[in-house]
């Protein structure tokens, strides 16, 4: 494409997004994860990092704000950082304590369904996962309500082992230790 007048860039323009906070890296400074963002940028786009985190840029950024505004911005970003850190810690703790349960449930004699619980704690959209299970294992798979509240995925057939493997393979955020296969005791008799 030939270049046009003043806006010389050819479209679509390619924009890099931060691997940590997902914004264009020039906006990382306004989020709560600046430190991590900076590390990421340094590792993945050193040229951009040099430009964005140079002494010159930082001074220039500050010079456009009044002293009072600087102080407010500083306080604001500290608050944000603290908030982001505690949210991250909480999420991590939640992930560490969460379990994905894959349960073999006997429906009729020799007929089984497999119930999968707990994926949402790892940030997964269980409706989508249910669909993926259905496709992957060519069987019925749907999201159903659990009597005690919450939802689980019900897959037709005895697929505990396959699902276990698939979950561990596909969702790297879920530690293998947090995935467990169990056998549901007979419903009758009150478990």
């Amino acid at each position: 494409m030939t270049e046009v007048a003043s806006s010389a860039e050819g479209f679509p323009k390619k924009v890099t997004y931060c691997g940590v906070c997902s914004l264009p890296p020039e906006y990382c400074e306004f989020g709560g994860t600046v430190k991590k963002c900076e590390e990421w940028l340094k590792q993945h786009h050193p040229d951009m990092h040099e430009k964005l985190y140079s002494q010159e840029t930082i001074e220039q950024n500050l010079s456009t704000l009044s002293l009072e505004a600087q102080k407010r911005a500083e306080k604001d970003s500290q608050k944000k950082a603290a908030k982001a850190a505690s949210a991250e810690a909480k999420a991590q703790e939640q992930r560490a304590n969460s379990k994905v349960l894959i349960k073999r449930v006997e429906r009729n004699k020799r007929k089984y369904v497999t119930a999968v619980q707990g994926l949402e704690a790892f940030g997964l959209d269980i409706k989508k996962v249910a669909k993926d299970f259905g496709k992957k294992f060519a069987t019925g798979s749907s999201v159903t309500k659990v009597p005690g509240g919450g939802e689980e995925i019900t897959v037709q057939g005895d697929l505990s082992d396959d699902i276990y493997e698939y979950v561990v393979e596909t969702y790297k955020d879920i530690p293998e230790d947090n995935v467990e296969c169990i056998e549901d005791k007979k419903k009758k008799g009150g478990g």
Partner: protein
Amino acid sequence: MFKKDITTGAKSKVKSSAQRGIRAKVLEEYPRLEPYIEEIMPKKEQLDLVKLPDRVSVYTLGSTPLFFQHMDDELLPHLSLVHRYPSCFPRLRIDRGAIRFVLSGATLMVPGLTSLGGRLPNDPEDEEGRYGEEELDAGEVVVIEAEGKENACMVGVLKMGTAEMKKVKKGQAFEAGHYLGDGLWGLNLG
């Protein structure tokens, strides 16, 4: 508009007749996209519609969000689309001080645009004419760029015309919009 994280609702295929209608509407609202429309929404490819809470729909091509819409209102571009075709939309610029407010979802106020670091159409400081010569009216969809930044940080509907902003220099500039880091930005459409 999208302050909270959003969970997506049903995804459905857009009928080809409706798809033609959307394409026409996009071109009517954003004529400067004309040279790129075929690469943005190729005629032969299937657009999907994803429902969001509060009667908002997003049109997507695969997992790429393109435009969103509240009920039957105007189609607003998703910021990732704006980033790819920045000069195809009317745009204004806020000063650096206003960025953090916009990114936290606060209503953008006029002083953020009329101050030294801000840019409105016909701005004497705007030597390359990046922000145009035509004043923009209330109700228009406008992209917001920021002082010292290359990429836009918000898109929304003007609440006050730019000519009036220059006169009164205060008040709310925008209705709630879509900004970097909001629920629409973070939407997982994979």
